[in-house]
């Protein structure tokens, strides 16, 4: 079933699919970031795919000079009961990735979370605020160069009178 979907995507978007990865029975399609919205729209609307349900959008920091950040889309087809992973890459110099909120409304919060944690900017997301961290926070905590202990004084914490 998943092979069928992979073939369909490859046939319709021959230039967009960079690689197909298989591991432990799950398929990940590497997609060029410019084409992610078109591919997602196709996967949602095509009669043989019907990936109508967004499970998650997550980021990852590969910490490599090129293609440092990965954005992974975990999508699910409720009619066919199958799962597919899409992956795009972006560089530190250009953190913009097109938003898929126009395809799946539910990508809104996961994209906000990814923005909050990695600083990846989703173009087209109408409400791209921080999800967990305060708005004033200047760092992106899940990046590999962010220390585990945090950055001192980066968060405005309440102080007692004596400390002042």
């Amino acid at each position: 079933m998943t092979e069928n979907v992979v073939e369909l995507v490859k046939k319709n978007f021959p230039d967009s699919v960079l690689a197909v990865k298989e591991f432990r029975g799950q398929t990940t399609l590497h997609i060029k970031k410019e084409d992610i919205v078109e591919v997602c729209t196709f996967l949602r609307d095509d009669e043989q795919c019907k990936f109508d349900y967004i499970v998650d959008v997550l980021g990852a920091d590969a910490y490599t000079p090129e293609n440092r950040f990965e954005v992974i889309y975990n999508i699910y087809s409720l009619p066919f009961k199958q799962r597919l992973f899409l992956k795009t890459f972006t560089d530190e110099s250009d953190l913009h990735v097109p938003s898929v909120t126009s395809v799946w409304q539910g990508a809104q919060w996961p994209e906000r979370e990814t923005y909050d944690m990695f600083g990846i900017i989703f173009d087209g997301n109408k409400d791209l605020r921080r999800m967990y961290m305060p708005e004033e926070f200047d760092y992106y905590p899940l990046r590999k160069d962010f220390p585990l202990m945090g950055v001192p004084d980066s968060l405005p914490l309440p102080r007692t009178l004596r400390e002042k």
Partner: protein
Amino acid sequence: MNTLLQETETQKSKILLALEDKDTNVQFDDALENEMVLNMGPQHPATHGVLRILVKLDGETVAAAVPELGYLHRGYEKLAENCSYHEFIPHTDRLDYLSPLMNNTAYILAVEKLLGIEAPRRTKFIRVIISELARISSHCLWLGALAMDIGALTVFLWTFREREKLYDIFEKLTGARFTTSYTRIGGLEQDMTDDVKATIQQFIDQFPEKLDECERLLNRNKIFIDRTDGVGAISRDKAVALGMTGPNLRAVGIEHDLRRASPYLVYDELDFDIPTFNGGDSLARYYVRINEMKQCVRILQQALEKIPAGPIHAFETKKVLPRKERIYTKMEELIHDFMIINFGVEPPVGEVYHAVEASKGELGFYIQSRGEGHPWRLKIHSPSFMNLQSLAPLIQGRMISDIVAIIGSLDPVMGEADK
């Protein structure tokens, strides 16, 4: 002066800007028609934890709402990158703290998928049993809290009596009542004794009757039905588009349950139904969860009958922690224990995602491994987070007192939503 004004404008928090639309500046003749912004939470007893909602009110009607998360954000995903796979197990207890055993199971299944190992059959059955007990425990709290939010305190006390019995079982089984940390890679912390088995049997023998008592308090209760029927309704398409999950998704009539869609453990050998309900309102969500608890009892009964004898640890010496008594007496086991504790199990390079149908919905762990003893990236996909996303459209246009009932029926747990 002008620049100063501009500055304050830019300093205005984005949340307020999101709430303010053009209508706020319109002058009303009637002072009572003005809209006001109310801050609900994070320290509010009805928001089930530290959820904060900013609501713009027109009288008592919600004109717009913005939920704010992050008050319980502990950075577990960052911590996981610095923990070995075993060290992260206790942290999973603190995600959905109403069903820690379920989280333990979900996490360990993802790790086992990454390692490519499988637990023995007896362990699989025990994991099914603990998952279903955790589901009952979580749904019991949801039922009590929902009824209490609406004003029926009795149900809360009755369901907590049941949860108390469950905690006694957990204590016997795992040694801890709350933070269980029961699963291990390829096995469990300790075996389930016959005594525990008998206690579980005792529990499920009496539980349907107790649940029935609670139902009799609510099913024909006019106040309860008026407060839930048609309240917080969502259409089928919208629920799917917003990524709602678990019982909330089944309450709009979609028969999606990962125990059936992609069976894990031994769920394919067990006979149970997936309760669905049409309507997508708070009452539908109530019926789905009530019926789910009845199915849990069915699953538990079958699992207790079918559970085989045998080992509980997989025979994978380099992945599974050896038994204590053997560490002290055998050289091989001592070495393996030392290596697993100090360097961690070393999985192959790769990325896996494994999800289970937790009490709140799809709970998944996405693990990126670079072949080291700790994950390169671990993403927790929490169902409460996705369910809360639909909160704003659900409460829009409702009364302020409905907010409480709708949150109660969605059943979010902030420990999980905030990670």
